[in-house]
């Protein structure tokens, strides 16, 4: 699947780079696609409630009530109708881009299969909502949709008589039909909301609201669109004629033309194959997962920081099993762990300041342990040469500098959130480098969700474990950017190195043996 992911990812890398510059990383719409979908849902819900006040369920009343809203009360109900339509369309658009991005970033396999696969019923329900909405207007587009939909449904051997026959003559339809349709049109979004809740069950701290500035911009855009291009109806439905030309809403009704070229059975088969393929994509092929985080009880005091920081709720606290004096211990659920190492960075036992014995922490990654990280740090530092030496701790999913060697060395982590702040202290206090650069995914676009955010908070001493006060902040720099910004990272490193040259070499301050057991906990120095 890599052959397909690569161009998708490259396209998103470029698009995100551009939008980062236009919007800033925090407001970049591509970083909030799921939240924007939610935002549109609320616009649709609020406008739908208002429209329901004026909507009349009846063969002629339905159309005339919609016309009243569109023409007589254009300034409010008409705008609400347009918002209802365009926000619904935007939901489809954001959903498709959201899926493409997660696919391109390979964030749909492994542990993330649940979130991906539960998205498929969301697609189906969203289309049910949209199609039934168009049905309610009872104009010629509704007639086209009604006839085509029922002809398509009749292919399934579930109806005793062809339901499409209900739309052959005006007399064959009664007002109760609209009551049924409005019931479906209200019930489907409620079920959709339930599935959305399930969709987010394996994501801790899901972001369901976009940043305020982006939300304001999106709403203003929707409002402007509604005023400039108000949603209108076709001519009223007339069952004694065949609808000839329709102005399709291609977001929801784009598949309908297929029914003119393919048989109903073929369309059913194609749709089923596509939906099943999407649903089971996480296993085509399955992700080769790294070993999941492991708890070392001898070094776990049940402080809960790994539980707080885990982006996927993979760590929980359970009663102590080893007889230690602490009430609880951390427990990793391998089915939820993505092996990002953020828990390692959160653990106060994660410190490189040990001289004797192997480095063991409370929670660690077997495939890239804290000891491996220290070894990699020291090896990278050894390769540094010259003045203004910069050791870059970088996320495997973030940008890579275009130039390495000389005064720059790179240590790659699964996620920058894996880096315990004590490693910054260790690097500088041991004189391994003159400065430390922390590099990772763009703000709000962390591959593992909270790497950059938690790192910022730890360095800024707003979240445990905090970076010690003694660490000279002018020798620490952070750079969060998209993957395509390798050159920008290199330039930033160069600027940082220039500054470090003016500062001079970092003071080497080996710790005395008595300090070898320092844990990077909530400290009260200063």
């Amino acid at each position, binding site marked *: 699947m890599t052959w397909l992911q690569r161009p998708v990812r490259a396209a998103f890398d470029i698009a995100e780079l551009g*939008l980062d*510059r*236009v*919007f*800033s990383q925090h407001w970049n*719409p591509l970083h909030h696609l799921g939240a924007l979908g939610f935002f549109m849902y609320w616009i649709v819900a609020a406008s739908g409630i208002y429209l329901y006040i004026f909507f009349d369920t009846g063969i002629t009343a339905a159309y005339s009530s919609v016309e009243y809203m569109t023409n007589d009360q254009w300034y409010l109900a008409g705008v609400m109708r347009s918002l209802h*339509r*365009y926000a619904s*369309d*935007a939901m489809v*658009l954001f959903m498709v881009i959201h899926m493409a991005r997660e696919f391109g970033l390979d964030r749909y396999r492994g542990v993330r299969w649940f979130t991906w696969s539960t998205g498929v019923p969301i697609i189906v329900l969203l289309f049910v909502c949209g199609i039934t909405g168009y049905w309610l207007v009872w104009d010629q587009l509704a007639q*086209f949709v009604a006839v085509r939909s029922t*002809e398509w449904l*009749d292919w399934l051997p579930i109806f*005793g*008589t*062809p339901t*499409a*026959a209900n739309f*052959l*003559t005006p007399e064959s339809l009664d007002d109760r039909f609209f009551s049924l349709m409005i019931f479906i049109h209200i019930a489907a979004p409620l079920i959709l909301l339930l599935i959305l809740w399930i969709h987010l069950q394996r994501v801790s701290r899901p972001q369901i609201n976009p940043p305020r500035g982006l939300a304001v*911009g*999106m709403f*203003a*855009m*929707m409002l*402007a*669109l509604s005023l*400039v*291009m108000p*949603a*209108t109806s076709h001519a009223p439905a007339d*069952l*004694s*004629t*065949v*609808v*000839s*030309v*329709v*102005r*399709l*809403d*291609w*977001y929801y009704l784009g598949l*309908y*033309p297929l029914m*003119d070229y393919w048989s109903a059975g073929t369309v059913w088969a194609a749709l089923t194959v596509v939906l099943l393929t999407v649903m089971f994509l996480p296993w085509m092929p399955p992700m080769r997962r790294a070993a999941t985080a492991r708890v070392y009880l001898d070094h776990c005091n049940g402080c809960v920081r790994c539980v707080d920081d885990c982006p996927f709720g993979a760590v929980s606290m359970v009663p102590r099993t080893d007889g230690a004096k602490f009430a609880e211990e951390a427990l990793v659920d391998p089915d939820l762990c993505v092996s990002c190492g953020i828990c390692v960075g959160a653990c106060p036992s994660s410190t490189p300041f040990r001289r004797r014995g192997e480095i063991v922490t409370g929670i660690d990654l077997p495939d890239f342990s804290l000891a491996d990280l220290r070894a990699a740090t020291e090896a990278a530092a050894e390769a540094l040469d010259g003045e203004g030496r910069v050791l870059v701790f970088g996320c495997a999913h973030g940008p890579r500098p275009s130039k390495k060697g000389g005064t720059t060395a790179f240590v790659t982590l699964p996620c920058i959130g894996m880096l315990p702040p004590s490693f910054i202290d260790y690097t500088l206090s041991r004189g391994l480098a003159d400065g430390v650069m922390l590099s990772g995914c763009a703000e709000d676009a962390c591959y593992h969700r909270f790497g950059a955010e938690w790192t910022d908070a730890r360095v800024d001493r707003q979240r445990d474990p905090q970076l010690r006060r003694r660490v000279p902040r002018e020798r620490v720099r952070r750079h969060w950017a998209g993957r395509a910004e390798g050159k920008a990272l290199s330039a930033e490193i160069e600027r940082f190195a220039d500054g470090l040259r003016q500062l001079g070499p970092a003071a080497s301050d080996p710790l005395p043996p008595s300090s070898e057991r320092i844990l990077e906990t909530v400290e009260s120095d200063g």
Partner: protein
Amino acid sequence: MANLLKWTGQAVFYAVLAAVIGYFAAAPAYRHFAADQALIKMTFTHGGEYKGGCRRRTAKELQEIAPNMRKDFDCPRDRVPVVVELDVDGATVYRASHDPSGLHGDGPANMYQGFPVPAGEHTVAVRLRDTARDSGFDYTREGRFTLAPGQLLVVQFRAEAGGFIFRE
């Protein structure tokens, strides 16, 4: 200056996004049905007669059936297929045998199908057989219609109404 460029960039982004959303919400128009055509739609939901007559069960057969299931007559549930033909201007455009629905073949046969024709004057003849006979038809009807472009002519069969109904 940088801020101005940012705001301008955002405005352009929103304008393009609005244009994409707004345009595809109602365009491009799709022609579903040719402008110079009319449509004949033929539909029925009708059960053919039962395949065989009822047979009185023997005393021995009744003994072998659970008491609560005993009925004097054994009546087959299967129905014969319904055969229909549609002629337009003397040419047969549709001829088919529709099997009864249901797992036991005891439900009504169904048909729903459209036949586009050029707008104009047409003679439409329909025939239906719902009995076990091999040839001939139990119901027939013919009519002459002038169909406007986009007009729908519905041909329904309702046994309770005496057979075929044409609705212009």
